[in-house]
């Protein structure tokens, strides 16, 4: 039997609609299919927030798509505040008007994360797929004016890694309390654009040094998180801190997943909040139990002393690259399929493409 922890974090994906079109978007590549069109109603979300608090969830992230497209966001924040859960709004910033920002503050929102794609206007707009630089900067300033703690998150790849100093300088100017620098993880949209996004080893080495300085010099009072590019690591990341161990994700249609990308594993059927409580889904659903703990593992993970450290790495990555969701994450140098990663890195180095396959623009109103 696995000792079942209570979930710490709930990621509420309120919608997959978004005005931006980033080529590494974490939403499913079929985000606009009929499967996701039917978004959960306000009533469901309010019920789910209370269920999450009763289940022991401490952190609630409102994300998307663009969560501010939901006009009932303020109501959700208000409900979460009444339970004491910590609330974070994860936004692109383009719809963050003063009026709504003040309402969100008055409803008790705790923290705001804004994404920045780059430090320069043309470069940022190029990745975002629409002009959004000025709006993002305005939003970040407003966050500080209203005395929210501000996290800026930046997805890193070949086209912005060389400006990492400039990006950190911009974050300093905006008085970010916390910065998340996350190297692109290659699933979904990012996998489609992998050859155009993969950085060079030299870029990564330099970035590591720049980040180390920012950490040492305490540029940001609550720190800089640097998510390593796992393609260049020796061991895989302990994805989500272990499958079904800490996090629940609710997709816009009410499917509950152990991670934002889990829908890419076709063998899994996700239970929906319209049919079951969050508590049932967390403890009983087949999808959450499929890769929990270490019993499901095959060799070389099964006998590996690190199996309870990295939990075999990422299931989605194992499936996407090897065709088998129970395989060792090929990022691990002990994986018999590790050559797939080596080959992808080599192929990325030899390309110099910057033509992306963007998300199509889904109506954003």
């Amino acid at each position, binding site marked *: 039997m696995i000792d079942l922890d*209570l979930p*710490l974090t709930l990621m509420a994906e309120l919608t997959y609609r978004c005005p931006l079109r980033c080529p590494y978007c974490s939403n499913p590549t079929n985000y606009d299919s009929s499967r996701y069109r039917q978004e959960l109603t306000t009533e469901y979300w309010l019920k789910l927030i209370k269920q999450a*608090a*009763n*289940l*022991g969830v*401490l*952190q609630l992230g409102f994300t998307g798509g663009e969560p501010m497209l939901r006009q009932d966001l303020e109501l959700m924040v208000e409900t979460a505040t009444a339970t*004491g859960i*910590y609330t*974070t709004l994860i936004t692109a910033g383009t719809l963050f008007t003063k009026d709504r920002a003040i309402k969100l503050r008055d409803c008790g929102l*705790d*923290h705001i994360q804004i994404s920045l794609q780059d430090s320069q206007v043309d470069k940022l707009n190029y990745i975002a797929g629409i002009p959004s630089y000025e709006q993002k900067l305005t939003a970040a300033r407003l966050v500080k004016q209203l*005395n*929210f*703690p501000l*996290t800026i998150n930046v997805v890193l790849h070949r086209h912005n890694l060389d400006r990492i100093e400039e990006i950190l300088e911009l974050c300093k100017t905006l008085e970010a*309390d*916390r910065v*998340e620098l996350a190297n692109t993880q290659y699933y979904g949209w990012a996998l489609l654009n992998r050859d155009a996004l993969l950085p060079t080893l030299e870029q990564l080495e330099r970035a590591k040094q720049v980040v180390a300085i920012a950490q*040492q*010099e*305490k540029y*940001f*009072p*609550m*720190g800089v*998180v640097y998510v390593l590019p796992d393609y260049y690591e020796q061991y895989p990341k302990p994805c989500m801190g272990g499958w079904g161990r800490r996090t629940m994700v609710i997709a816009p249609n009410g499917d509950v997943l152990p991670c934002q990308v889990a829908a890419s594993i076709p063998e899994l059927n996700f239970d929906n909040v319209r049919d079951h409580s969050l508590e049932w889904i967390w403890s009983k659903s087949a999808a959450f139990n499929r890769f929990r703990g270490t019993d499901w593992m095959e060799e070389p993970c099964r006998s590996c002393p690190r199996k309870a450290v990295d939990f075999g790495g990422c299931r989605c990555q194992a499936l996407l690259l090897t065709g088998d969701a129970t395989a060792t994450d090929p990022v691990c140098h002990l994986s018999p399929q590790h050559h797939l990663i080596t080959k992808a890195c080599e192929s990325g180095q030899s390309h110099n493409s910057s033509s992306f396959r963007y998300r199509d623009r889904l109506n954003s109103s």
Partner: protein
Amino acid sequence: MIEEERVYYLDNLGFASGVRLHWSTARQQHWLLFPEGALFLNPTAVAILSICDGYRSFTAISQILSSQFCDVDINQVQNLLLQMLKRGLLINKTP
């Protein structure tokens, strides 16, 4: 290491914006909640952090704790405050 040379003052400490204490009924535990993080707090840590209101000196905090607990380890109090300061969760609110 540059960090070692930094001097930290332990007077007038209060929570940074976006940091707060939380009692989880579901878990029957006290937690410190902050951007993208949650720390489980034992009863001593709760006692210390709940009197960091931005106005008390370190001496005042030690005195309050001494009146609540019979054997207060000042080093332990100092260490906790220092850790919280370094993580940006507590800040110096001296006007």
